[in-house]
């Protein structure tokens, strides 16, 4: 375990050194992310200037959905940025070198590229989330369930990224797969109640975007029943099991593409 942490920090240090090489790029990308955050927040604010509730949620509740979405999305990008570069490893044959190393490949291909840009953004998102949550009446039990469901969301995000890696080996289409994952999770930017059936059920039970992005906030504002809280953990366990199974299948099928 200690060895894994040492390797993780070593990879993170290398990733930070690589990212900090292109300073202009860092500033512009960071600016782009901040602008996107501000503009979407403005969209919410703009809507609530002319309407009181959005599917039964007040402005502060809808803002909390948006902030928690940003927190989960950004945290998973900080941890799993290396997945975005996985296709290159597969198509050049570089994955062979990773698989031959005496450590678990996930340390390199899943967690090996901590993202400096998103790491910077986590802090303001966290502060804003705490401020928004503070304005909502909640209980210690609800906060505890929120934290559990938040961790559950990161667990689901991990499983999704493992699925993307496996699909990367099986199809070499990882660029689009990861971006589709991002687009699907972005449905959780607003409360999932805004979506009509069958979209809502599909993104709750088949691809659990709602469980990831909406359930933690629903629990915090007291709008999530106990059976659905239990269901969240069942779904995340099932996805994790499926993801690891798919990864095993992908490794069995892998036959060094590069040259």
């Amino acid at each position, binding site marked *: 375990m200690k060895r894994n942490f040492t390797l993780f920090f070593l990879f993170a240090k290398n990733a930070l050194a690589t990212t900090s090489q292109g300073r202009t*790029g860092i500033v512009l990308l960071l600016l782009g992310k901040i602008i996107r955050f501000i503009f979407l927040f403005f969209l919410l604010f703009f809507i609530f200037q002319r309407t009181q509730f959005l599917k039964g949620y007040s402005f502060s509740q809808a803002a909390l959905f948006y902030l928690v979405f940003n927190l989960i999305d950004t945290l998973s990008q900080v941890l799993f940025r290396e997945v975005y570069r996985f296709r290159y490893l597969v198509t050049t044959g570089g994955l062979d070198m990773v698989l031959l190393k005496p450590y678990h490949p996930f340390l390199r291909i899943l967690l090996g590229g901590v993202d400096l840009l998103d790491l910077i953004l986590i802090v303001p998102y966290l502060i804003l989330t705490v401020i928004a949550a503070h304005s909502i009446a909640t209980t210690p039990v609800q906060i505890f369930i929120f934290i559990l469901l938040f961790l559950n969301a990161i667990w689901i995000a991990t499983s999704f990224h493992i699925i993307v890696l496996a699909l990367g080996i099986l199809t070499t289409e990882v660029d689009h797969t990861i971006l589709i994952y991002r687009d699907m999770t972005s449905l959780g930017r607003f409360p999932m109640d805004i979506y009509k059936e069958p979209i809502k059920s599909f993104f709750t039970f088949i691809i659990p975007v709602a469980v990831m992005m909406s359930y933690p906030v629903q629990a915090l504002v007291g709008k999530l029943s106990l059976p659905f809280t239990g269901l969240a953990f069942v779904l995340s366990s099932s996805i994790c099991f499926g993801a690891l199974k798919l990864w095993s299948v992908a490794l069995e099928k892998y036959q060094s593409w590069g040259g």
Partner: protein
Amino acid sequence: MQSSIQLFSITIKEFFSYRLNFVLWRLRMVLGTLVTVFLWMAVFDGKSRFGYYSREQMLSYILFSSLITTLVSSTRTSELAAQIQDGSIMNLLLKPISVFSYYAALDVGDKCMNIFFGIIEFVGIVLLFHVPLVAPQAILLCLFFLACGFIGFWTPDVWAPRFLFTMIVFFVSGTYFPLDLLPEPIYRVLLLTPFPYLFFLPARILVGGAQAPYLIQQMICALFWTGGTYFAARLIWKKGITEFSFWGK
């Protein structure tokens, strides 16, 4: 002309060679549109108007705007930056066709494919989710602004500035809501920038027709920005190419 037709044809064939790639790309676009459509459907739940817009007008605006975005923003110029960085731009510079003509031909192919599938998706969303639409109006005028938007968007760039540029463009060009819902002074200032002429004005005209008092000002601004951005792109390209030295892999 013959070479441009060949390039157009190759672009179309390329899409059919990488079918999964294209299908996944379109799926991403549909998901993006669905978020905005459902958000506005929820806003209009138990509400008949939002500002000057009725439910039908707003949803029509969002869907027309998404279709126009597909047409305007689909471009192949994004690969130019990578070509400069890895040195493969040399192959392009040695070809007996200008870079602008080369990418114009690729872009026409790209836009044809994207708009074809964009229309299918548009119809699919309308039928599947029973989205009420208003009949498109002033189509010729819309086409005028649309033609301006094509050239305005056509700027070779690199990833980080492009990301920043895209973020700004998507918000201040009215992808998420009609810009005329903003306070009047902000709206008037935005009309002086090139952004509303990309998606907002064509979609707004289709939904509500032309706004007569501002029409002449808008047409002059659109022409100015069309010419301005086109000549700026040519000038920057000319300057860049004189300073270019091969330093790729």
